């Protein structure tokens, strides 16, 4: 017999930090329910939804599917005993899910699987996709590596903090093409560092700071548009680490850095990772700034073990659209979507599940 259950409480009630409590909720109702049963239910629900969508598409009323999705979400919430409010929340939430998912779903449904497969086999497409995972990764790493210290400083608080926070958020509103120009003028030939050369003495390696059409420029442009997400997420994560727990580390002999390394960082890493993923995703989608700063770049393509030149996927898709039309560019976009969805799922399931600490 089940009562009014707030699953969240079951496993997370003792957690003294938000993230611990959050994770604990990942196995809701499983305490009493059957883990395998939950998996089957998920599969069943997903299949039913897909079938319903296919049916709606087939009869030509994809809009009808939206209604179905909302109703079924409400029904599931009702079955899971979430009360009227829970049912309403599920229904409204599904409206948004539909608004976000339906366009993508319909786009994917429109694709010709043969063409998608053929496109996937095209080395140029593979290179673009590779670059579009790789360069955003560099940007995300840069955002996190530099954003974490900034987030830490912001989480600690200082006078005039609002100014800095607003500055951090400013790149968010900069139109993408303006962002590209700003970077070009800011760091390009005439701007700061433009053409500055560093020479590493021993190996006689000279590094010239050029942004135009270089990997450096692409990563810089991506970092510019995506770093605010990394900083904001990391700041929230650091703020939710309980002060007293950090203090405890200090009294046990850990200095600031050690406390950060062994306590603050491990407690905040999920938030930081979320920020990194957001930054990565934002960088993947960037077209305007990248198209201006680094329309195509030379980079080292691991699968072939050589340097070659390719375009960031959004740019590549745009070009494909111009030269080969909607069908083919849609296929590339579908591949990009699928790849990203896979990466999201991987990050969410593998990386967030570190066992032990609940």
């Amino acid at each position, binding site marked *: 017999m089940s009562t009014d259950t707030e699953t969240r409480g079951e496993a997370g009630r003792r957690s003294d930090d938000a993230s611990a409590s959050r994770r604990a909720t990942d196995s809701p109702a499983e305490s009493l329910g059957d883990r395998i049963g939950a998996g089957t239910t998920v599969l069943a629900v997903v299949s039913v939804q897909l079938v319903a969508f296919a049916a709606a598409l087939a009869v030509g009323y994809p809009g009808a599917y939206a209604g179905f999705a909302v109703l079924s979400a409400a029904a599931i919430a009702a079955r899971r005993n979430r009360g009227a409010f829970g049912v309403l929340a599920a229904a409204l939430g599904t409206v948004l899910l539909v608004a976000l998912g339906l366009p993508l779903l319909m786009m994917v449904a429109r694709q010709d699987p043969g063409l998608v497969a053929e496109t996937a086999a095209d080395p140029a497409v593979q290179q673009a996709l590779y670059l579009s995972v790789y360069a955003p990764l560099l940007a995300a790493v840069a955002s996190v590596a530099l954003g974490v210290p900034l987030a830490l400083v912001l989480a600690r608080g200082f006078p005039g903090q609002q100014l800095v926070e607003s500055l951090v958020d400013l790149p968010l509103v900069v139109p993408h093409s303006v962002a590209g120009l700003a970077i*070009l003028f800011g760091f390009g030939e005439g701007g700061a560092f433009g053409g500055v050369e560093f020479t590493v003495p021993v190996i006689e390696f000279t590094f010239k700071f050029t942004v135009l059409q270089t990997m450096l420029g692409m990563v810089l442009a991506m970092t510019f548009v995506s770093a605010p997400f990394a900083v904001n997420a990391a700041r929230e994560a650091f703020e939710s680490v309980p002060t007293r727990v950090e203090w405890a580390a200090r009294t046990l002999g850990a200095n600031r850095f050690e406390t950060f390394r062994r306590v603050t960082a491990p407690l905040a890493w999920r938030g930081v990772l979320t920020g990194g993923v957001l930054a990565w995703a934002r960088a993947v989608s960037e077209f305007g700034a990248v198209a201006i700063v680094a*329309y*195509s770049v030379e980079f080292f393509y691991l699968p072939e073990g050589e340097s070659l*030149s390719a375009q960031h996927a959004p740019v590549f898709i*745009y*070009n494909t659209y*111009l*030269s*080969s*039309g909607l069908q083919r560019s849609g296929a590339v976009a579908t591949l990009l979507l699928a790849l990203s969805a896979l990466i999201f799922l991987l990050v969410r399931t593998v990386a967030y599940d570190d066992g032990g600490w609940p």
Partner: protein
Amino acid sequence: VGGESSGQETTTDGESETTTGIGNATEASEDAPTPTADSATVFHAGSLAPPFSAAEPEFEEKYGVTVNREAKGSVASTKKITTQGRSADVLGVSDFRLIRDMVVPEYGSWYAVFATNAMSLQYREDSPGADEIGPDNWWEILSRDGVKVGHSDPAVDPGGYRAVMAVQLGKEKLDGQRLYDRQTYDRIRDNMTVPTGTETKLEGQLKAGKLDYALYYRSIASQSGLPHVDLQPHVDLSKLNRKYAQHYEKATVTAGGNEYVGAPIAYGITVPSVAEAPVRGAQWVEYMITDPGRRILKNKGLIPKTPAVVTKDGDVPARVAKHAEAKTSVGPLEL
């Protein structure tokens, strides 16, 4: 050669021997110092993407060079060079006047007019009136209530003002004939909307059902897989001769603070003076104005100008000059 040079039919000219006196020394000295340039950068208009992308592999094969193309609107592509400080080895735009007015003399000294295009009307099988439409009644269908005709933004895209011009020209008389009257014109104008900046997005909007008809270049229309109506030369801006040029001049469009006067569509191409591999650039231009390029242009719905026309002044590379005639005007258009 004066401004009065004859207005030829675009496709029938046979003279390709006109080589103006640009020293062979130039050619030699240009070729020699950059034998190692193994890549070339091409900025070009969206409507040149299909032919240029088709040409790219063949060209790369032939010259052993990597071509990096950057497609963007014609104006945007030009501005990359003039305001963003970018360098390109080739710049191809859908209106040579962009090069004439913005690139010369600061970023280049010459250009070639190498192709024309025509305006056409694309639609979906299920667009209203799609089953009736043809070259002789398209205006009647476009003037019906509730039909949505899209074109790109005249303020920022040559394709946009050309679409408006095409519709304007229908009400103008040519040889005493006009296609439709002022009322029809007004009704069509009312049905026209600007759903995008550059023409490249129109096709998607048409396919998505948000437009019933789209007015853009035949080169795009013929590649898209959707049906289209080829408009008559009366309105399609394709005729690069005096008679039609004078007719086309009757259309004027004011947008974004500029006034555009009707003229035949004439694609321009150049090797900017900021090019890093000017020889590669010249090779590309040469390729596009010679047979292999012309064939590709034609395949992709463009109309190659044969021979191409280059400016009389400026450092026209020899390999280009030898395939083109040098003029100071094409038809009525000043070079």
